[in-house]
């Protein structure tokens, strides 16, 4: 941000803030579905920011990240649904979910973090699959997760008499359930962005960067590489758990199907496409990848009809084909992501020079 007038930055941030606050009402004009889509986009931003700590900052490729999201979601679902008859308040469960995810992050990380590069990637991938298979099968002999049917009728957020699941009119404006969640998620996202941005330039953030660039040199500089990597894993995992809990509450229903490998890969793609290590790039990647399929869903069908007169190919297939193509093309022409981090930019420039 050097060279820019600080007042201008504040004005810009203010404008973005106002736009974000007004967004749900603009979207509600197009249908409540879009507010919901936006909410899920924010959840993906949270996930991508969490994974960015692991992949972008510390350079550890995690292909099973969705497992932590799943853990957070299941903790919320089991503690606030008729399944066990428990109905704890959300402000208590969300931290528990984050803590459980964090614990599993440490459990996975402690024995495996000495692995390097792709070996770590495949172990995390295996971990993700193991968690999913357990969620899928822990309905017998003792019914814990209710198996493939998943857990339904999960409580929405409630704070006293304020219920996030219901519509309400405040100050003459109608707030539907999704709009309320939107503001909650927005606040969460701001907090997470603040934490990650501050983290990046902190002593810990610099230690991560050092480990990422050269582990041996980092150790020689007196960094406890095992602990610092474990910290990245734990923090990333707890962000994932937090997002998972909110997902369960918003959706009201979860099943193991929401936590398949493809989801992990999607989040990794968001981080890399946007620009690994750059918080704003990662946010851009998450927003693009979560909106693109939805926008394609609503455009592919009419476009096909207007060109051929009828729907030749299933919209879902075209959507995925374009999606895959976009991933290949973006990597082909912007290999460091859409908004590369400063370090990556420098590296690429050096290589070319």
């Amino acid at each position, binding site marked *: 941000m050097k060279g820019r007038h600080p007042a201008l930055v504040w004005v810009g941030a203010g404008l973005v803030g106002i736009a974000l606050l007004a967004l749900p009402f603009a979207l509600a004009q197009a249908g409540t579905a879009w507010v919901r889509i936006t909410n899920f986009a924010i959840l993906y931003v949270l996930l991508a920011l969490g994974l960015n700590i692991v992949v972008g900052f510390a350079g550890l*490729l995690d292909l099973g990240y969705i497992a932590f999201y799943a853990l957070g979601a299941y903790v919320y679902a089991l503690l606030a649904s008729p399944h066990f008859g428990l109905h704890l308040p959300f402000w208590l469960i969300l931290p528990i979910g984050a803590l459980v995810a964090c614990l599993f992050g440490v459990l996975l990380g402690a024995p*495996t973090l000495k692995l390097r590069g792709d070996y770590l990637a495949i172990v995390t991938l295996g*971990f993700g699959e193991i968690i999913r298979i357990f969620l899928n099968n822990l309905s017998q002999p003792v019914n814990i997760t209710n198996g493939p049917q998943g857990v339904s009728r999960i409580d929405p957020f409630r704070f006293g008499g304020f219920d996030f699941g219901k519509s309400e009119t405040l100050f003459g404006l109608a707030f539907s359930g999704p709009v309320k969640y939107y503001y909650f998620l927005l606040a969460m996202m701001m907090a997470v962005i603040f934490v990650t941005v501050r983290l990046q330039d902190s002593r810990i953030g610099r230690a991560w960067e050092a480990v990422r660039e050269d582990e041996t040199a980092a150790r020689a500089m007196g960094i406890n590489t095992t602990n610092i990597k474990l910290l990245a894993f734990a923090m990333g995992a707890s962000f994932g758990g937090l997002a998972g809990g909110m997902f369960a509450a918003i959706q009201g229903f979860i099943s193991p199907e929401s936590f398949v*490998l493809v989801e992990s*890969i999607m989040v990794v793609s968001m981080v890399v496409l946007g620009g690994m290590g750059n918080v704003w790039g990662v946010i851009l990647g998450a927003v693009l990848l979560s909106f693109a399929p939805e926008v394609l869903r609503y455009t592919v069908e009419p476009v096909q009809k207007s060109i051929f007169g009828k729907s030749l190919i299933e919209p879902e297939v075209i959507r995925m084909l374009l999606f895959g193509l*976009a991933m290949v093309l973006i*990597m*082909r022409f912007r290999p460091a992501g859409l908004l590369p981090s400063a370090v990556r930019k420098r590296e690429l420039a050096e290589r070319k020079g």
Partner: protein
Amino acid sequence: MDIFIQQLINGVTLGSVYAVVALGYTMVYGIIQLINFAHGEVVLIGAMVAFSVITALAPGGWPPLMVVAAGTMVAIPVCMAIGYGLERAAYRPLRNAPRLAPLISAIGMSIILQHLALLVWSRNFIAFPQIIRSEPYHIGGAIITNVQIAIIATSVAMMAGLALIVYRTRLGTAMRATAQNQHVAGLMGVDINRIIAVTFLIAAALAAVAGVMVGSYYGIAHYQMGSLLGLKAFSAAVLGGIGNLPGAMLGGVLLGVVEALGAGYIGDFTDNWFGSNYQDVFAFMVLIAVLVFRPTGLLGERVGERT
């Protein structure tokens, strides 16, 4: 004891398919340090092409073996073309990019291939025509079918052939040199681009045959079958030590056996608390356990990180 032998036979059969697919991963990884995420989809397309050819020829009254051979012979060049196309379009332009860029490109390609397969062969399960009659042979209470024997024999033959190419020919020497150090190999007169392309071609040919084998073993094909198969094969490659050919073979067979034995015995060991639906967990548990104690896989040697 009968169950033990039976599960061992099933495990070795499935494991040898894993091994053939794992070889494709490990060869590509060994030479350009890339997890070729689209490799599972190449296997899928091999299975699907063979299915189409076999279905078309089956009513012709040809000998069944010839029909299957014809299917395989068509699947191999199709897969090789796809493998070559992948390398040219998605990986070669990214050879000097940051480490994760080709991985994302590979994931994109795997999404594209999977949905192209969906377009051509629909999203339904397709039944492979059972033209070869499955004949059981009894060994000490267990059963091995002629299809299983054929799969194991074909896998062994292909692994032997591959080993011959890699360790006994000029091409193989060039491949190993490129894997060790691309730049120096280039200085020694090895055409790096050609060698990498050839590696992809061989890997794709192996994948095609694996596709036919897995299709005829399960008797069923589906446009999503490539991903889990690819995942397990890649795990097998890592288990054996990625980039190491004998490692991939060992890892594949081991993974198949562990899976089969695990699924067969878990009920007994845990008093039926856990059933065979935990089969897929074993593969990954073993993988994690092995890597914790041998971080570079069973036969892998320490390799430097790509910078």
